[in-house]
């Protein structure tokens, strides 16, 4: 009997809820025998536009609903545990990485409807006014994933951003992009509306300058940047006063969410 011929996967970018090749038609081969799309500046712009369009809808979902969708992503990821372990090179460390990624999704899923109670305040102003402060999403967030851990670094970037109601354009690990593109399949089956989260692969030096300078990106999680990339991103970010967050040490923390949020303060007089 002839040996089984497997049906191989074409790895694609994830933009606006669709799996697409790079509009540039380019690919690179960081892993032997696998062609990975090499996203262009235009792909990046398309992803930002898709994200911006999805923003009002996602930010307008109830916190509970966002939590349920993030939790669903944890379910989908857990169900594909073996596939991710294989893409991460197998062995116990890969297993631990997948487990930690699942844990991050579950942990941040639980924060969505608690954050305003921890990070918000009612402010006792000296006058007849009711005054309160609540966290709100900042908008489109660029997530630069760490090279390694390729899966966990990405999840620790996108989960807190999404939990806070932001929309995401993520740049995957350049040298180990496969888990990111497979994670996109997890996200695609978790009920995120199209465009809420977008995943690009390719060369960081081609994409990062445009992400940093894009006028419709509000914040960048630069956890995966080298010191030089970080400095360049921070300088480009000044063009539209976007904030660049870079200090994550991998710990799960509510400040990973609030660092990508705005605080809105509302005043109203009290009277009869």
């Amino acid at each position, binding site marked *: 009997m002839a040996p089984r011929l497997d049906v191989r996967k074409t790895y694609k970018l994830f933009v606006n809820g669709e799996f697409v090749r790079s509009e540039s038609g380019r690919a690179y081969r960081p892993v032997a025998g696998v062609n990975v799309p090499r996203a262009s500046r235009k792909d990046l712009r398309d992803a930002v536009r898709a994200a911006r369009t999805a923003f009002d809808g996602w930010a307008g979902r109830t916190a509970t609903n966002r939590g349920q969708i993030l939790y669903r992503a944890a379910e989908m990821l857990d169900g594909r545990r073996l596939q991710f372990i294989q893409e991460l090179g197998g062995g116990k460390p890969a297993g631990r990485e997948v487990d930690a990624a699942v844990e991050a999704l579950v942990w941040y899923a639980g924060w969505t409807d608690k954050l305003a109670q921890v990070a918000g*305040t009612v*402010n006792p102003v000296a006058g007849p*006014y009711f005054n309160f402060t609540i966290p709100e999403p900042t908008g489109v967030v660029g997530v630069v994933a760490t090279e390694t851990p390729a899966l966990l670094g990405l999840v620790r970037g996108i989960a807190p951003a999404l939990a806070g109601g932001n929309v995401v354009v993520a740049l995957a690990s350049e040298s180990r992009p496969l888990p990111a593109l497979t994670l996109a399949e997890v996200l695609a089956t978790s009920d995120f509306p199209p465009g809420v989260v977008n995943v690009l692969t390719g060369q960081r030096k081609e994409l990062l300058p445009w992400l940093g300078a894009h006028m419709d990106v509000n914040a960048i999680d630069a956890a995966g940047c080298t*010191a030089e990339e*970080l400095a360049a991103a921070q300088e480009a970010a000044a063009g*539209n*006063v976007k904030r660049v967050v870079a200090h994550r040490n991998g710990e799960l923390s509510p400040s990973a969410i609030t660092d990508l949020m705005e*605080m809105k303060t509302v005043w109203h007089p009290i009277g009869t």
Partner: protein
Amino acid sequence: MEPRSGRWFPTINPATEEQLSEVSEALKADVDRAVTAAASAQESWGRLKPSRRARYIFRISRLLQERSRELAVVESLDGGKPIKESRDVDIPLAAAHFFYYAGWADKLEWAFPNRRPRPVGVCGQVIPWNFPLLMLAWKIAPALAAGNTVVLKPAETTPLSALLFAEICQQADLPPGVVNIITGAGKTGSLLVSHPDVKKVAFTGSTEVGKLIQKAVAGTGKHLSLELGGKAANIVFDDAPLDQAVEGIINGIFFNQGHVCCAGSRLLVQESVAELLLAKLRDRVDTLRVGDPLDKNTDVGAINSRAQLEKIQGLVESGLEEGAEIYQPPCELPAKGFWFRPTIFTNVSQSHRIAREEIFGPVLSVLTFRTPAEAVEKANNTPYGLSAGVWTEKGSRILWMTERLRAGVVWANTYNRFDPTSPFGGYKESGFGREGGLHGLLPYLGLN
């Protein structure tokens, strides 16, 4: 002390153009000296028992109250703002700000449980000329409470109240080096924010300069918070209490001559009440008293500087050229000094410069809308996002609007209210970080 630069510059009274004093210009050697002083004081101040830190800050608050009249007069002389504002708003709020943050100094562990709050180090702070002492308070009070030392540079047109504040720090026996005040213009500020021993930069001012600072700080690892420009929409629905709204609109744009980053400079009126509201507004503007800042009846004082006056004049001309209709009350202006009549532009479209650019003067641009959705669309159609106002009697609509307005402060059925407990700061190109309240501590702390 004498500047090592050996250079001095004059500061004038913008209401008379008379020189009030000469102030030293801090250049490299002086900035170095100030930052070094702050750096050597940092260790002991950061380790001081928090309750002792609190006591120093409480002392400062009390001294500000005790010397409030003197400070109010200096503020009005140097900056041109009406004495009733410096007396009733600027100085009391500055004192209250120190009082509020003094109490936080020994409660940081309760503010941020499980996060091990710690000081960030020497803070380089640069503030604007519109609320000199109040902006100083917004910068210095939380920085000290969090255990940092500071070097602060006031604006070159309004340095005097900050120098009086330095004297107050001496009177409070604050340890030397904890607070350092240096005077100068843009060059001094640039030397300060790029000094390698400054660990945190805080800036309030124009978006243009804010972007330069963000660039200068890039790659240095310094903490940064920015409170920049605004072009706030003040939105009036047809069911609003119109007389109250008129007071809010007047306060929103003419308070402090419109030299307010959160000024309600774009009035959005629902079409059905536009005519009535504008008639009331014109009547009210006619009653504004423009003139001597030291007269306690004055509503609108002097424009802060000749440069600012020219900027306002230029933008008002562009409004006329682009086809907007102007209304100015027939009031007399003093012969000397920098003055500008309260101005209302109608027939303004969103593309006009006066609807897009921050004027930072007593100039209101009026636009109209039909539906709440259109109001939101127009209000958010700006790169800024500092503040907004909403006037309507309908509670559910207030909350609906509040959710959708991309601005850091929303005043509903009121405008331009400030309080030490209330966080203030912007979205988008209006900056990041908050000042005031619990959130105002965050820019000055490292947290786990």
